[in-house]
Structure formats: C-alpha cells, structure tokens
C-alpha cells in the first residue's frame, strides 16, 4: 500500500529500510525531539520493526521523494484495534537529517498523511503528541490548523485537528506552494 500526493509517496516501510531508519533516528538532529533519546541498537530496531509491522493499529511509511527515502511517517489508532476502525488517529513524521529539514517542504508529508487519515481511513479527528519544549513542532502543527488540547499522562503536549480546521488551512497553503504543480512535476520521479 502506498499514498501518492503533493509530489511525494508514502510507502509502507519494509525490512530493508530498517537500518536506514535506525541511523536517522539515532542522529541527534532527530533524536533530540523524541521522548526516548537513548541510542537504538540494531537488535532494538529489529525488535521494534517486528512488532509494529504486524500491528494493525499502526502504520509506518517511508517518505519518498524523487525515488529516495527522505523521512519516516507513522499513524497510530487511538482507542481502537485498527486504523480502519479508529475515529481518532495520531499521525507523525520526521524528515531525515539534511536538506529537507526545517523547510516548507515538510508540509507535503503532513498534508499527505492528513488527507489519507481523513479521506481514506475516515478519521474524525487527528491528535498530535509533541514534547512540550519542541516549539518548532508545536508551531508547525498550529500552522496546519491544530489546536492545543492539554497534556497527556507523560506530559506531552496534545494537539487536536478536525477536518473543518484542516481544510481551510490546506487550501490556503497548497495554493501558495502549488503542490499540484509539484505533483505534476514529480510524477516522473516518484
């Protein structure tokens, strides 16, 4: 299964990508924004992948751009055993260290994930969980229409996004970045 939108492709993560993802995840540029910042060994990563790849309440995707993996995205069903049954889904992603981080390009995987949740999986609400001191992620989510909804038991900031909050933002931002144009140009490279 894969999602093509906004010039990128979300491709279900495969076992041959496990080590690449581990290296990204261990890079301080990425790990400093994670709840668990401990170094992840090959064994830990293999164990994690074996667990999540057979769990219907989760999905992990490689974010592909021009044929190359540039980040990892995930979805988690909240309160239901599968993504298809969930009315509330937690989406998240990070871009690999390098060229794309910190740029407006981050809106492409965010829009692709949100569209997939609302339009294909039928989610009624998205919830993001972010470290309270990760101002960039909080601001990014707010620019997507998320509103703050308190903190969870771990002290993570919870943000909520409803379709009526998301679509006006998507319309406004996609117009400026001409994602349709990006999509057309990227077709040959997907």
């Amino acid at each position, binding site marked *: 299964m894969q999602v093509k939108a906004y010039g990128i492709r979300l491709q279900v993560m495969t076992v041959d990508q496990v080590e690449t993802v581990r290296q990204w995840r261990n890079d301080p540029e990425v790990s400093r924004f994670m709840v668990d910042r401990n170094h992840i060994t090959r064994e830990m990563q293999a164990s994690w992948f074996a667990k999540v790849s057979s769990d219907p309440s989760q999905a992990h995707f490689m974010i592909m751009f021009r044929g190359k993996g540039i980040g990892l995205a995930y979805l988690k069903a909240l309160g239901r055993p599968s993504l298809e049954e969930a009315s509330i889904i937690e989406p998240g992603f990070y871009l690999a260290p390098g060229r794309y981080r910190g740029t407006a*390009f981050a809106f492409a995987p965010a829009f692709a994930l949100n569209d997939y949740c609302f339009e294909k999986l039928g989610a009624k609400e998205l919830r993001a969980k972010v470290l309270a001191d990760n101002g*960039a992620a909080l*601001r990014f989510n707010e620019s997507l229409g998320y509103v703050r909804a308190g903190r969870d038991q771990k002290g993570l900031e919870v943000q909520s996004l409803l379709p009526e909050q998301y679509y006006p933002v998507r319309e406004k931002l996609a117009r400026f970045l001409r994602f349709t144009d990006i999509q057309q140009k990227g077709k040959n490279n997907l």
Partner: protein
Amino acid sequence: MNNNDRLHRAFVDGLAVDPGLITDELEYNSIPNWDSAAHMVLIVELEKGFDVMLDTDDIIDMSSVKKAREILAKYGVDFP
C-alpha cells in the same frame, strides 16, 4: 521601496524577528524562529513581495538571506 528593502521585509515578516537580525549571514538553524512553519510564511512573503512563483527546489534551497538573493536573481530580481 527597493528590492533589498523588500527582501528585508519578507524575512522580518516571515520569520517574525527583529529587523536588526536580518543580515546576509542569517541562515536556517541560526535562530530558533527559522523552522518549517516560518519557512512557509517566508516563501509566501517572498512570492508576494517579488511577484514570483518559486520552483520546488528553490523553495527547499531557500536557506539563507544570501541564498534568497541568488535564487531571486534567477527570476529576474535585481539587487543593487
């Protein structure tokens, strides 16, 4: 307002920073304000300010004030 002023204004508005911070040396990661959301606003401000439609790669590569001058020059924007 000349093009240098427009560029300066776009960065001030886009990154929501003090005008004194905007120098050619200002680049991504040098200030906390420069994140993905701010970068989107910056791109919007640059496109509006200079009436251009930036290419995907140019959007991604817009990583400093100096680089912004170089990229905008490709679109026919002169900086005296």
